[in-house]
């Protein structure tokens, strides 16, 4: 079973993602960036879902750290965020995220399909 890491400080969002993805993937949750980065080293995920508005380090800072660590650098990292103003999506993709998922997750099938697609591309 592929491993998904979720970095999300809101308990309700963690629960939604766990319930949606738990049928297909092993989901590990982290509540902040430093905790997540330590966890990624010891339990390397196959894909990371990263909230942007996080305590201690924001999601863009966490992404920079992931890209700076050689064994984590190739991982697909999705922004999972309620930032939905014009330009937010483009700015996050420009920052290096592989995809952008808006919260709340309204289209479950599309959400799962995008994760599966990213995992298949990494495997190729």
């Amino acid at each position, binding site marked *: 079973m592929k491993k998904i890491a979720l970095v999300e400080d*809101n308990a*309700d969002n963690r629960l939604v993602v766990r319930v949606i993805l738990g049928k297909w993937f092993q989901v590990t949750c982290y509540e902040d960036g430093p905790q997540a980065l330590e966890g990624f080293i010891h339990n390397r995920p196959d894909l990371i879902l990263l909230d942007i*508005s996080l305590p201690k380090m924001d999601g863009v800072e966490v992404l920079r750290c992931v890209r700076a660590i050689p064994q984590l650098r190739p991982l697909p990292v999705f922004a999972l965020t309620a930032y939905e103003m014009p330009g937010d999506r483009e700015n996050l993709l420009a920052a290096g995220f592989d995809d952008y998922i808006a919260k709340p997750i309204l289209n479950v099938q599309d959400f799962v399909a995008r994760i599966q697609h990213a995992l298949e591309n990494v495997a190729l």
Partner: protein
Amino acid sequence: MNDRNQIDTQALARLNSIGGSSFVREMIELFLADAPKRLQAVRDAQAVGDLIAISEATHALKSSARTLGSNHLHALASQIESMTRFQQSENLPALLDDLEQACRASCHQLEGEKQNYPR
């Protein structure tokens, strides 16, 4: 109660289709536990004039509100987040009063909805 504060029960039905009754109930209980804290964080930030902190606290409230069908609360939180993120504070006290009222109305309704989603 003002109609615009009505919970969209389709949103709860959608959650039910994803994870079942006990999942919906847990989501409601998380909202009921977290929303007052988020609201207090907004008020604390308002008291010290910290617009960025208001933006962050309303951001957290926004997606939870939409997930549970509190569409008016979501709209208000989104409006306040957008304004304060760009350091705009025109009419902010009245909007924050509306936000508090909408949050309390949502909590009241969701408390009632819990009975439709047994564990």
